[in-house]
């Protein structure tokens, strides 16, 4: 059987995700802290604790940057830097728990990304991936590259190749670990619309990686 039962949608528990794919053991241990640690770090960082802020950065930045990759492609790191400037500045005004913090940071990052796109006047999901992903070299099929190497970049490139609304819904659900309501709040959509977008996106992805459609 070529299928597995897997849980998604709460990737904060990255260990679980990796357990389902043991062959993909990464040399770097996951640094994603528990939600309780994040919540404690929020409180401490709001008091000015630098170490706590670093904890928050490490907890949020990798997934936030991946979300931005799907939105703005190779400019993700720049946009993430801008987003973090704002997060650092406005952190004291935030109130909420770990998942609330993820949503808050995602909203800030998204706003920055849309500003960026408005300035650049282009849709990077269509415009870019080729030079941005080493695996996705000239003429190579993104899906084939994803199957062979299954790097994070290749996976994100595949997700980014979906229609923008589906790509964003999938990355919020899978990478940011949001439920339909939280993702809908960020996207300005009803939860039902988010579910539909995720469904369509996953279906297309499954076809692309499996049937090479």
């Amino acid at each position, binding site marked *: 059987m070529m299928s597995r039962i897997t*849980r998604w949608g709460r990737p904060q528990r990255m260990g679980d995700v990796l357990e389902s794919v043991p062959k993909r053991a990464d040399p770097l241990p996951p640094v994603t802290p528990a939600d309780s640690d994040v919540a404690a770090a929020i409180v401490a960082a*709001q008091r000015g604790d*630098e170490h706590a802020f670093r904890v928050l950065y490490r907890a949020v930045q990798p997934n936030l940057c991946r979300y931005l990759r799907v939105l703005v492609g190779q400019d993700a790191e720049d946009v993430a830097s801008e987003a973090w400037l704002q997060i650092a500045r406005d952190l004291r005004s935030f109130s909420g728990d770990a998942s609330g913090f993820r949503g808050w940071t995602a909203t800030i990052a998204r706003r920055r990304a849309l500003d960026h796109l408005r300035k650049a006047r282009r849709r990077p999901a269509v415009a870019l991936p080729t030079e941005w992903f080493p695996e996705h070299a000239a003429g190579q099929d993104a899906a084939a590259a994803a199957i062979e190497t299954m790097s994070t970049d290749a996976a994100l490139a595949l*997700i980014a190749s979906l229609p923008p609304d589906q790509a964003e819904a999938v990355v919020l659900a899978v990478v940011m670990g949001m439920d339909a309501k939280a993702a809908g709040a960020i996207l300005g959509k009803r939860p039902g619309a988010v579910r539909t977008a995720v469904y369509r996106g996953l279906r297309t992805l499954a076809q692309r990686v499996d049937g090479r459609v």
Partner: protein
Amino acid sequence: MSKHQQPRISRRTAARMLRGAPVIVPDALVDLLAAAVAPPRDGELVGEQAATTAFLEAAHRDTVLQPRSPSMIKSMLAKALTVKIAAIAAAIFTVGGVATAAVTGHLPLPSNSSSTGASTSSHAANTSVTLTTTPGSRTSSAHQGSPSPSLVGLCHAYIAGAGSDHGKALQNPAFTALITSAGGKTKVDAYCAALIKAKHSESSATQGAGSPAAGTAPGNSAGGHEASTDHPTGPPTTQHTGAPTTHPTGAPDPHPTGAPATHAPH
């Protein structure tokens, strides 16, 4: 190994995935999604120092520019709320949360179980609070009345980082202000211990004093029509001087209540 046996992605699959429930998806899609959420690599954290610098600058600016802004009480309340939420989140996590997550891979959502988690939050609150505020236990003469919050933040940062590389921490330019205030690198330890201790006692005092007693007294709601009679009695006092007897209706008797108010300015 026909691809036709692959499970199909249904709406239900997507809905379950969004709930964090287990889903059955094709192998290749599992690999793809796993790659998308793979642990962070080195390159993904390159902006940490820049972000942290911005954070320290923002913290410094906040405290220097508006040390006593009216929003302070609001932010204090927000912080108290955050502590409560942190406690609840911690409680959920500690009370069987780890086991649940490990077995099912499903994190209990705070929004669903916060009411049940609150009953056991007291223990977790202690852990989360002590986690965030662990000043050095050294005692020193703390005679500063109100330490600058940014210095306190720097102290927290210094103490948090001091465990790993004590000497190097102070070479970070971010600590320059701290070293200056302490009067030398060697005095930072004692200075921070004193500062945080002072800050602690101060913040606990202000939180106690912040009890809601500032309601404006609504007292004179019934005096509305009295006030309207007050007004005419004000000017009449000058008119009365001219002809006190020509105004029999304006006799002092009908306005005994309004009298004190009109007399006060005279």
